[in-house]
């Protein structure tokens, strides 16, 4: 009862789109970050499945890299969000608009 590859693609695409929707609608910087994590994990679904599909471990290894880099990204992101909070008294990404046009 193998699940066809297209199902996995649809699953990851759906995850990705949920992530995109979160990015587009959320104003809280932390939720913005979480949405991006979701998008990264959508990619991980693909990697893990297709690694098995093609019979090599490249994809699974790469998904580990993605996870590690996502953590690093979050670390930097939290740092930036902290200074954002100090300078703008909040973590609303739409508040920081001193530069435009």
């Amino acid at each position: 009862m193998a699940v066809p590859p297209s199902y996995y693609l649809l699953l990851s695409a759906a995850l990705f789109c949920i992530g995109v929707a979160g990015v587009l609608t959320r104003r809280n910087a932390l939720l913005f970050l979480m949405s991006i994590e979701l998008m990264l994990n959508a990619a991980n679904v693909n990697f893990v499945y297709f690694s098995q599909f093609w019979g090599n471990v490249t994809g699974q290894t790469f998904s580990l890299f993605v996870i590690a880099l996502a953590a690093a990204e979050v670390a930097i992101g939290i740092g930036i969000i902290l200074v954002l909070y100090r300078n703008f008294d909040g973590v609303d990404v739409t508040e920081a608009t001193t530069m435009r046009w």
Partner: protein
Amino acid sequence: MNQWIAVGALGVVAVGIPLGMMAASSMLRPTVPEQGKSAIYESGEVPTGTARVQFNIQYYMVALLFVIFDVETVLIFPWTVIYRPALEEGVPLVTLLAPMLVFIGILVVGLVWAWRNGAVEWVASPRALKEKTES
């Protein structure tokens, strides 16, 4: 498709049982709202405020350090997978070990740097100190 029916049935049951129990109990129990019931349970202590308090920033620093070093360790995993087969294939031990030592070495440099820069030291903030002396 019949195997999917089983999956669906499992889902229905999984959601249905708790819902049913909650529904049943709300129908059977007497409803006596009281302030003490909705108060925060702090193991008998009188709560000092709401649960929505701001944590000291240093919790985040420690958490961040944990997350980073924790996740970096995951990268050791693929190496361990190939370690033994590669040794058996006759790859020299140095060739196999050196990259991982370098990797860990770099992590150690980062950790020591963070340590020396006070990332893991708990510095009492002036405000916290003040609160402590006041209470």
